[in-house]
């Protein structure tokens, strides 16, 4: 049921509109006609500032919210009329790591696997623990995890059952630089294995680092959509200037703390 039904894009969003009614105020038009497509096996970044409506788009795609107008298909299934098939095809990693703090890391993964009705939930959990470097922490309650570990567990939970599409809503907001690099690495890995990734972010650098294609959501509409090179061409050609390159504070921070290399559970990148 989760196999691609046609060769059409993994995600197709057409004319999406959504308003929120606020008592005694003008309704808030969050989405005013959003269109975009995501090809299979690519990373698509929805870029926008706080309150631009990124989470609203993700929630509509995840069958958690109904749009006022427009159509969304995921993996060829309509989010309204074929919601059950859409849920089989996707995994949502929400804005705040939606992990159960009272359960252990392993129990969280077993829970996710059993809710996808998978056999051998324990084995699946163990594999994901290994892949996300959470084996040592597997038996500890999630309440004791760091922000980065929670996020990794959160993403691992989304990968149980290998859904063809995964939605990551601001996956690195609130994370420290090292954790952010860990999450980026995880996202790249997911995409390399053929999963379609849609992520929302307010960080330009994140979109630049990860995305095959970037769409900018602004005032309820997609105002730009293309590859990084496409977007660069929208602007005047680059001038060549010579400037002394100062290290950024982030580069200094990572150099001092060792770019994650010293952390027992983190592999070095580059």
């Amino acid at each position: 049921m989760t196999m691609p039904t046609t060769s059409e894009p993994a995600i197709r969003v057409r004319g999406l509109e959504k308003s929120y009614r606020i008592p005694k105020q003008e309704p808030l038009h969050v989405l005013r006609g959003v269109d975009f497509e995501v090809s299979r096996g690519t990373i698509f970044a929805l870029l926008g500032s706080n309150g631009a409506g990124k989470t609203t788009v993700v929630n509509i795609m995840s069958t958690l919210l109904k749009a006022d107008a427009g159509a969304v298909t995921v993996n060829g299934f309509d989010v309204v009329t074929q919601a059950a098939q859409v849920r089989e095809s996707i995994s949502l990693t929400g804005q705040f790591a939606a992990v159960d703090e009272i359960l252990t890391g392993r129990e969280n993964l077993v829970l996710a696997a059993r809710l996808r009705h998978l056999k051998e939930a324990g084995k699946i959990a163990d594999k994901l623990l290994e892949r996300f470097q959470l084996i040592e922490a597997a038996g500890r309650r999630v309440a004791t995890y760091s922000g980065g570990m929670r996020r990794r567990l959160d993403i691992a939970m989304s990968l149980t059952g290998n859904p063809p599409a995964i939605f990551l809503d601001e996956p690195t907001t609130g994370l420290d630089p090292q954790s952010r690099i860990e999450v980026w690495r995880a996202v790249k890995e997911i995409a390399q294995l053929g999963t379609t990734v849609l992520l929302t972010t307010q960080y330009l650098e994140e979109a630049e680092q990860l995305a095959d294609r970037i769409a900018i959501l602004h005032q309820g509409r997609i105002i730009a959509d293309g590859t990084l090179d496409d977007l660069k061409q929208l602007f005047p050609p680059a001038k060549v200037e010579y400037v002394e390159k100062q290290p950024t504070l982030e580069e200094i921070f990572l150099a001092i703390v060792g770019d994650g290399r010293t952390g027992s559970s983190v592999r070095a990148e580059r």
Partner: protein
Amino acid sequence: MNKHFFADTTVLLGRTMRHVTRSPDTIITVAIMPIAMMLLFRYVFGGAIETGLGPGQYVNYMLPGIVLITVATGVTYTALRLFTDKKTGIFGRFLSLPIARASVLWAHVLTSVVSTLISVIVVVLVALLMGFRSGAGVLAWLAVAGITILFTLALTWIAVIAGLSAQTAEGGGAFSYPLVFLPFISSAFVATETMPGPVRAFAEHQPMTPIINSIRNLFAQEPVGNNIWAALAWCLAILVVSYSFAMVTYRKTVA
């Protein structure tokens, strides 16, 4: 009904029951207030209250009311657990999975019934230490358990409405204050005949009184009379109404 309903409910029930067993303080917190009231009424006010029972038997008289107060306190935690799930996004995660969506609520409802009953058992055990005695047979005890479970279910669905629609944790718990208070204006601690007219009229026609009287009669091995029908009718009516409103709220929450 979705083919995964029972499997999903079982999995999610396992999760919420772990929440209860790993923080048993909720069971104790729920039991402590009713136990404190029992102590207060037994050893402070009890001597001044005429129940027509022998001395020291007041604990027999008030236990049914205390049980209802325990239930009203217990379901507060259901609202809080539900609110927390909604707020932390774990609700969204579950609802975006290919599961039977109703199982998300039912797991909380069943956990509410089980954990509240454990608190009730703790309270009854303390009552036994304080001199509560009943010659009730197995059937009468089963009837008491049945009424208590039905009452817990009815109040739990009210808690579901509160938990789903709350904007803050405090708001999610506030619904239970009137429920905890209601037994005081009933036959729980004093006979309704001693109350002034309008208060008495209220006390005799609110749901707590027939439920309390039924349980009291069952414990005392006396005929339950029409109380039991009034009690069942109230419980079922509250259950049906609160379940319907909970479903409306749920659909609004999950689109």
